[in-house]
């Protein structure tokens, strides 16, 4: 049995320790926000936070998450309030097919947690997730907008 906390809820799962976190989330715990795109840490569709750090859950064995905190897109809203990054994503109409977007949003939230005012270069370096629909221009705009909101609410 492996214990882990997902979006604030404790779970214990009876799976192989090497089973990737992504598949434990999706197929065992029915948490479908993180997506499967490549399975080899290339695309970032599976991005979740492990103790606040963005990780590519397709390439993290569940054993590495044992007794740790996992946050997925489903856990981002607080008391029904969307995260400012999610709000910026809506304001700027970022998603097209939407498949990459939970990963993009989790990567952006992690970036803004570390860097309150990322430059375009910082965004280029941190946001390595693939969007096949090419929503990049709007992702960039939305991250800058979310940074502004975060600054004004926290200042």
């Amino acid at each position, binding site marked *: 049995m492996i214990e882990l906390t997902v979006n604030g809820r404790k779970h214990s799962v009876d799976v192989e320790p090497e089973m990737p976190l992504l598949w434990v989330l999706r197929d065992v715990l029915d948490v479908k926000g993180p997506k499967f795109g*490549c*399975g080899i840490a*290339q*695309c970032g569709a599976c991005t979740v936070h492990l103790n606040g750090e963005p990780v590519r859950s397709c390439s993290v064995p569940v054993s590495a998450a044992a007794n740790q905190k996992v946050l997925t897109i489903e856990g981002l809203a607080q008391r029904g309030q969307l995260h400012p990054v999610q709000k910026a994503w809506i304001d700027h109409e970022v998603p097209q097919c939407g498949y990459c977007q939970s990963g993009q949003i989790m990567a952006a939230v992690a970036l803004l947690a570390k860097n309150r005012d990322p430059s375009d270069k910082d965004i280029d370096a941190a946001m390595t997730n693939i969007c096949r629909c090419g929503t990049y221009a709007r992702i960039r705009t939305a991250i800058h907008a979310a940074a502004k909101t975060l600054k004004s609410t926290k200042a």
Partner: protein
Amino acid sequence: MPILFRKSRRDFLKVSTAAGGGLALQFMIPARAIAAGAVAKGPELTAWLVVNPDNSVVIRVARSEMGQGSSTGLAMLVAEELECDWTKVRTEFVSTAEHVRRNRVWGSMATGGSRSIRDSQEYLRQAGAAAREMLVAAAAQRWKVPASECDAENGVITHTLSLRKLRFGQVALAASKLEPPKDVKLKDPKAWNLIGKPARRLDIPDKVRGKPLFGIDVQQPGMAYAAIAQCPVFRGKLATVAGERIKGMRGLIKVVQLEDAVAVVADNWWRADRMLKLLPIEWDVGPNGGASTESIREFVRFGLEDSSVPVARDDGNVEAAFAQAAKLIESEYYAPFLNHAPLEPMNCTALVKGDRVEVWAPTQNAEATHAAAAATAGVPLENVEVHLTHLGGGFGRRGFQDYTRQAVSIAKAVEGRPVKLLWSREEDMQHDYYRPMTLMRFKAALDSSGKLTAWRVRDASHSIMAGVRPQEIKEGIDRHALGGIVDMPYEVPNLRIEFAMRNSHVPVGFMRTVFHSQNPFMRECFVDEMASAAGKDPYEFRRALLQGRPKDLGVLDAAARVSGWGSPLPAGVHRGIAVQDSHGSYAGAVFEVSVSAAGELDIRRVVVAVDPGYVVNPDSAEAQVQSCVAYGLTSVLWGEITLREGRVEQSNFHDYRLMRIAEMPKRIEAVLVPSGGFWGGMGETPLAPLAPALANAIFAATGKRIRSLPLKNQGLRLA
């Protein structure tokens, strides 16, 4: 113009007629369309919409949403005429079982060729107008006044003389009992309130919440999971599989053998995939086990040399014009196979129970999926229901039903249990219907004033139609493969177009913009070669040839104007231009680039002008231009599927590179110039002029012609 996936639809119709009209059948699960958050409780007013008592409106969408935003655009068309409150509109996908039961009431469900809006705009607007008239009539009856004294606006009907008001929801039930009007008058485009103004996409809130909208997210009680390995050489077969190797392993449910594939069914996908990788499988690869990119290219290239190929167009007399030319130019162009690579890998969930089948699929054609499921299970159409999910990208790949047939076959083997088949990225990369490999040779003649007098095209290409609709090929000529060539906008007095169909064992299919993703590259680069040889400006050279084509000229001029064509640029920065119409719309593009001596390419500005006639949602239209830039540049810069020993060499995103945010040009300008009077596509046309405009800019910067893609093989990389 290509009409995608018609073959499947015809199959559907065939089976549909054979099954007759007795449709009063019980369904396993009540017919119900899946739609995030949509609740169609109230009465139906035409097949297209439901007005709930709370005044909210559910508009039915028969086409697939794969990111292009058409589910919102289609709803806007209905709502424009309905005069409902747009903030209370939701959508739901229609049920294919209902579609069969109701005699195809929702028309085509195919989503391809940028046809969703342009093919259905008229009947959708008519449905909205009919529903509005029914609501108004019901209110007028209640007030006992003539309907002509009543107006509908924003979900409220007003009796204009007494100013009495009723909300749509209050009269919807009564309205639903009225006969829909036979003839309805549609609004003048000048009176549109919704169409042409930016509207919020209805699917976005769920998408930023990570809601389980996609095929891969389907969850059913007792569901099993399947992973699949297909014969690595196309057209090969399964020989043997040693199933005992994984016997007794944790989670194993079944090993299923298909004609050309093996599937492992387990209690989660990771276990299924892991066991599959342990299975010793022998393939009978057939005669194609020795094929390579080089051998296929030689095979296709023979079409350029062949002395007897059919002629698709022969205006004037090219040979005579060549004999009198002041200047002759000749070039050969090449475009490789490409993979679609939607980010969501192929998947399908199926349940076979007795003679009934239920399918959940991210598909670009739910009707074709329905027909494929019925045929695979060997049951009548009436026994099938397909739930259309959102698509994690489609780009043409999901018009093919291979993964549906597999899922139903596997579900048959574990009857009574729903099973979700999911391909690994490696399977997806190596089992696509690829963009066809194409070669072209051009010869052109200029007179002493630099005017184009003759042009001969020899096109040697794979044909998509040969596999999909062979009846379209007439006397060896596939006009679909000649898109942008046989119907080129330029006026050329002597024009000869020859076509050599060269189909290898590699399956080919429709990929975003289809042949307009490679043919305009070749044609428009060669036009640049002509302009250079004539000593003329490439923009002016095109203008002269487009005098009879105001729409093409319009987008060319718009792109030139916005980009400041001809105005001075910083040292080292150069422009390239191209134009192309496709999918009912027109697009022109200008690139500004610089290229270092080491081959580092800096794309400084991209201007794309598009005329789709009418723009429904300008915000989505702009997003489609950006999307085309990312998709198109990915192909031009890196895109290439290669083969060795009959199989695809690329396997995942490490060796089939897709654009990331750092590589996306920072300055992209979408210039929408809708000229009105027609409805064109928006999801593909902007892509067509990109490759040639970029290649022409590279020529301007380096003096080196790009005649073969991708650019990474031409010593160029992004700065």
